[in-house]
């Protein structure tokens, strides 16, 4: 009867999941920026040189992406399958969402730094020379963008890997968390944001290795795909 799909699979079009997630990210990013600037303003009333509070947002943001990614794998992909879509279709949308969030999230981070710097100038605040954001030229915004995009990509991959592991293996799935964290910390990206849990790993891998980060993303995506491609839907 309806052998012909009414959907056009050839062209990329935004799904409700894409638009929902991008919209949420933009709203949250905007709200965080307002709060960050507010904190800078209040702190500047008492001390001379508050450190960048936007950097703190940058430290939390990857975790937000990881949670969203895990939620897509754990909740949305099974829903897709239950609605007659393939696991592959769900996986592809997960990846597309990851790319969108990493790119748009990184853009928000870059713009946020610019706005925050402008806000400092407006308030007439001087920053200490040790602050990397001032010591690097305005071209550093490209670097900031690239750095966050890479970080978000790693954390997004990590979240999906954990999400699908938990869905497929239930209790054993928790093992994926230390595995994912150890893998992610290898990249050293974490430390750039100023928050480090695996400081000891940083000493082993002192530099941010872009190549390594890309390899980690690819590996996590591959493992996620292997787990998702033939997973059974859980019984209600």
């Amino acid at each position, binding site marked *: 009867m309806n052998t012909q799909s009414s959907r056009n699979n050839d062209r990329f079009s935004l799904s409700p999941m894409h638009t929902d997630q991008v919209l949420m990210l933009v709203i949250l990013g905007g709200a965080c920026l307002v709060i960050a600037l507010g904190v800078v303003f209040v702190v500047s009333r008492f001390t001379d040189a508050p450190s960048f509070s936007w950097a703190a947002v940058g430290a939390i943001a990857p975790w937000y992406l990881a949670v969203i990614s895990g939620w897509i794998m754990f909740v949305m992909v099974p829903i897709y399958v239950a609605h007659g879509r393939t696991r592959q279709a769900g996986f592809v949308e997960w990846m597309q969402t990851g790319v969108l969030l990493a790119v748009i999230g990184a853009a928000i981070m870059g713009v946020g730094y610019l706005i925050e710097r402008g806000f400092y100038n407006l308030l007439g605040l001087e920053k200490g020379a040790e602050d990397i954001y001032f010591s690097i030229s305005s071209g550093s915004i490209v670097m900031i963008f690239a750095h966050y995009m890479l970080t978000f990509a790693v954390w997004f991959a990590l979240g999906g890997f954990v999400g699908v592991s938990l869905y497929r293996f239930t209790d054993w799935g928790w093992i994926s968390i230390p595995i994912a964290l150890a893998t992610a910390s290898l990249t050293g990206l974490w430390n750039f944001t100023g928050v480090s849990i695996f400081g000891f790993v940083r000493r082993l891998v002192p530099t941010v290795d872009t190549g390594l980060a890309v390899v980690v993303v690819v590996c996590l995506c591959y493992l996620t795909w292997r787990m998702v491609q033939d997973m059974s839907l859980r*019984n209600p």
Partner: protein
Amino acid sequence: MNIEIRNIHQRFGDTIALNDLSLSIEGTKIIGLLGRNGSGKSTLLNIIAGFRKPTSGKVLMDGEPVFENGRITERLALIREVGDTVEDSEKVEEALRYAAYLRPNWNDERARYLLDRFEVSLKSKISSLSRGRRSALGIALGLAAQADLTMLDETYLGLDAPSRYLFYDELLQDYMNQPRTFILSSHLIEEIARFLEDIVIIDHGKLMFHGNTEQFVSQGAAVTGNAADVDRFVVGKKVIGERQLGRTKSAMVYGEINIGFLEQASTDGLDVESLGVQDLFVYLTQPKDE
């Protein structure tokens, strides 16, 4: 539409849920899938819908494998528990939005009409819905998907009798307006037997019966009379159940009930009564060791 189930085996650890099950379904029909709890019927539906890859064997629809084949799976709908297809924290409205995106043949008007009939508000949060309303949402999502093969696995849970009859009426309407195949699994056999064209019975992971409902019913009879006469009569016949009250005995016989059978019973002074779908099912699948 044609579904070919070939030598399906499903193992869960040490237990065998489905044992070399083969079955072929054709045409546009309402089919009843009957089986006791744990018989393997839900597992079978999961495998047909591509929710699960069986341990071995395969399912073909119009000659193509079902599992991870998007062109085929979009023509299938299996509703088990509504939580499969919606996210609990969202509103009913949101669930429709996703269904409209994911289902190529989605009929939004139909979905809204059904939800209205079942008194499910579009603004309700799904987690706040009662058991019955959740089932109703599942039914609406299943019917509005307008899939070539729609499977409803005990979707009546929590629905009161008026809502169930509403469900049956709407299902029949759907079937008549847009003929397609439905598979219903239900324990409320009495309620659905009359609109089942075919019946599939699964017992202990094996196919026990597949065929026309009337043909099924015509194979079962209760032979009642003097115990000794009944015992003599049933020799060589397949007796699937017995009941005795004093000297009167009823034997449930399964097999071909032809003119010869009826005439013999009549000359022996025995009553022959048909066993409806439910009774026949109960006698056929009741636990053996008692």
